[in-house]
């Protein structure tokens, strides 16, 4: 193989084949998926994100949440991802390409050092934004033995002057809980991150991924 054109052409061809299949094809098909109208509710699926949730993606990216948390529910015939959520109603379903339509970037992830977050907003223990803030501020005060980093740097500890702030995180315990006369207030970054996390609900039906409603 002493001829340069053959080498260049051959390497071009092998590479181009995969480029067409794995880049150009998804760009042309998946890249142009549209939301679908839900006949039962009249809304569209996947539902639009709130402005706060859109901003929260930047904070999620900046702090590298995706290196521990996937957002990817694999089908039941292959894994136990769905069986892990027996109480969810409607039943959790596998995630499909259209589920990531509203997200930029799509944090599918490749690690489960922490829990999968595809349906974090549906979890029972996440009843309110305050629960999310408590978890982010001091994970080990909520889940003992958790190895999640503390995101205290997204919160401000301040002295209570006059009335306590409405935004203050309540119910904090553990070594970093505010002393008497102090309160912990989320920064803008923490607020948008919590809004993003709460928006993670993939329980709406799609034509390619219907949901089973329990009797």
């Amino acid at each position, binding site marked *: *193989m002493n001829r*340069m054109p053959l*080498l*260049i052409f*051959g*390497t071009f061809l*092998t*590479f181009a*084949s*995969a*480029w067409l299949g*794995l*880049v150009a094809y*998804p*760009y042309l*098909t*998946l*890249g*142009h*998926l549209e939301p679908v109208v839900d006949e039962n509710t009249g809304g569209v699926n996947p539902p639009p994100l709130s402005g706060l949730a859109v901003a929260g993606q930047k904070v*999620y*990216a*900046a*702090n*590298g*949440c995706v*290196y*521990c948390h996937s957002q*990817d529910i*694999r089908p039941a015939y*292959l*894994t*136990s991802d769905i*069986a*892990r959520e*027996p109480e969810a109603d409607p039943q959790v379903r596998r*995630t499909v*390409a259209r*589920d*990531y*339509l509203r997200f*930029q*970037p*799509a*944090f*599918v*992830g*490749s*690690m*489960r*050092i922490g*829990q999968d977050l595809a349906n974090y907003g549906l979890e029972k223990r996440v009843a309110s934004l305050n629960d999310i803030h408590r978890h982010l501020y001091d994970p080990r005060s909520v*889940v003992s*033995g958790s*190895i*999640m*980093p*503390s*995101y205290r*740097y997204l919160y401000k500890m301040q002295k209570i002057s006059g009335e306590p702030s409405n935004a203050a995180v309540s119910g904090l315990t553990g070594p970093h809980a505010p002393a008497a006369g102090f309160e912990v207030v989320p920064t803008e970054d923490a607020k948008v991150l919590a809004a993003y996390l709460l928006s993670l609900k993939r329980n709406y039906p799609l034509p390619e991924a219907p949901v089973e409603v329990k009797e």
Partner: protein
Amino acid sequence: MNLTSPTPAADKVDASLRLPVMIFFGCAACWLVVGTFLAAIAAIKLVWPQFLDGPAFLTYGRIAPAAVNALVYGWASSAGLGVALWLLARLGRVPLTYAVLPVAAAIFWNFAVFLGICAIVGGYSRSIFLLEFPGFVSGMLFVAYLFIAVWGIVLFRNRTPGAVFVSSWYLVAALLWFPWLYFTANALLIWHPVSGSAQAPIGAWFSSGILSLWLAPVALAAAFYLIPQILGRRLVSYNLSLLGFWSFALFAAWTGTSRLIGGPIPAWMVSVGVVAAILLFIPVLVISINLLGTMKGSFEALNWSPSLLFTVTGAGAFLLVYVEGALLAFPSVAALFDFTDVLIGQGALFLLGFISMIFFGAIYYIVPRLIGRDWQCDGLIRWHFWLFVSALSVAYVCLTFGGMVQGFALGDPGVRFESSVGFATPFRLVSALCAIALVFASKCFAHLFFRTVLAVLEERKPSSQPVTV
């Protein structure tokens, strides 16, 4: 065996390459220490989350990608670019002209990596694997790369007529593939992001491509040069080389989506990735037979040539890591072990076992020829080898077994998620200790490198003694 530059022409080739290649290797050595250091911090944080807890720039989600990027773009890519330039010039017996541009590109590349690492740590990461750098930094990297790739291709075009060595195929291919990979991925995911729905397959294509179509070919090129050259013999078979090269080029390009089994992409894309990753076993076997077969009957040479020792170890890791890749591509296996520490172990074996060991071998071989002086201290080379190999092996075994336990726990709906973390912790603890050992092994290498270079700079006059590495 005298392996110094055999002719005045080769001396001229080496002289023309001295500055750019040494800049690449010097920066690479620094990035290796930085990268392993950051990786050690991240590894400790996984078992002891309170460690360095508090400031934003030290959080796991910033330190871990900073470590991976420092190792991939700082260490491995810098070293790879240096190795590629040197090999193309040496194989073509043609000196590098207008060396000032590659020198500038080398500095620019490493400056861009530095900016990128600062951006990740400072909270400007894009959090797409191996595309974390902000858009302007990846633009800088792309431009710097183009300059070096053009110089590499020019070296190949101007080669002295004669047979084209196997190494040159891999190098030319890698120099063409990287810009295409990097430009496409940045254009579609960073500069002008496509809809979120299409990002998973493109991201998987890119991250597997940068490892298998950029770093792996350069490392293989180095191995295909070093092993026969040090032993003074020919490769086992030319036809095997041909088969290995083309089948590797084809299958490696398609493997990316095998990491998205059950993921949000069309099923045929997963299938094709699975098939490619399993078929990749064929070229890997062919390449390994060719490389390790050349060693047959000469294993005692490993005692006197550290270069050969590192390279052959790297070739062994190459076989192991791709065999593991083929096994992990089976859907039933992937369903259990995707998302676990098994993948971290495989990544470490790829980057620090396969790629790094061969680049260490290449640097130990090339530097004495460039600066005309042998390595300062044999003891440090041995320390570097044994500490690096043993720490990496133990970490790999721990992460693999720990990851398997973690995978079984995650796969059993009756086991709470928190338990999967608890099961993995003892294994992660040992691999964190190994990560610390890897920092020291990397420091041995960097120390030796700079000590040798400084000794030459102090003398100001290159010695003419023959070198034997």
